[in-house]
């Protein structure tokens, strides 16, 4: 059984560009959450998707948006990239919104 997968592994973008990150949840999981982890910090909650809708959102600007597809996979989109968006982006899936989160390996985004 494959765990949570994320793509790409690494990404380098230029300030002002847009980026899309992808996540496939663990088999049978219908809830996907996204996190941003800056170097040396703990993960920061961006938002959570359940039944194809954004259910909860952390303190992130509208430049951060997402989508969940009928197969429960998810995308994170970031527009107008800033240098401060450089971070490890983690996706976590769970059986229900309150459950144990299973994390993917993350996507390392570097904005230059």
């Amino acid at each position, binding site marked *: 059984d494959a765990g949570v997968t994320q793509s790409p592994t690494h990404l380098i973008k230029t300030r002002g560009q847009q980026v899309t990150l992808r996540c496939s949840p663990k088999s049978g999981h219908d809830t996907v959450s996204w996190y941003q*982890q800056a170097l040396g910090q703990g*993960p920061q909650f961006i938002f*959570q998707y359940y039944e194809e809708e954004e259910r*909860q959102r*952390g303190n992130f600007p509208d430049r951060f948006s997402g989508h969940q597809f009928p197969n429960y996979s998810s995308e994170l989109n970031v527009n107008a990239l800033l240098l401060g968006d450089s971070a490890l982006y983690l996706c976590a899936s769970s059986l229900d*919104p*309150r459950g144990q*989160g299973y*994390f993917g390996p993350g996507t390392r985004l570097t904005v230059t």
Partner: protein
Amino acid sequence: SQQGEEDPQALSIQEGENATMNCSYKTSINNLQWYRQNSGRGLVHLILIRSNEREKHSGRLRVTLDTSKKSSSLLITASRAADTASYFCATNNFNKFYFGSGTKLNVKP
């Protein structure tokens, strides 16, 4: 901030010793979870304790939760070099998850 905060920020012990990490948080929670992270990679779930539970064990791990003090502790017994990692607590407050900045544990062989 609603984040959990771990204490200490860093901990260095010898193999075989016990390691204790603490977590404090500010809001009411549904549950609290502990995770391990090796060198900036994905997080590995260790244990989940619900708000109506006071203690939970899993192998060499023991977690306590005191909701009146809004605090939790993670005890790793008989530590091994492979336990070297960053440890995070995450609070779940109505489906919003908040992580602290973690405890860096170094277990010396």
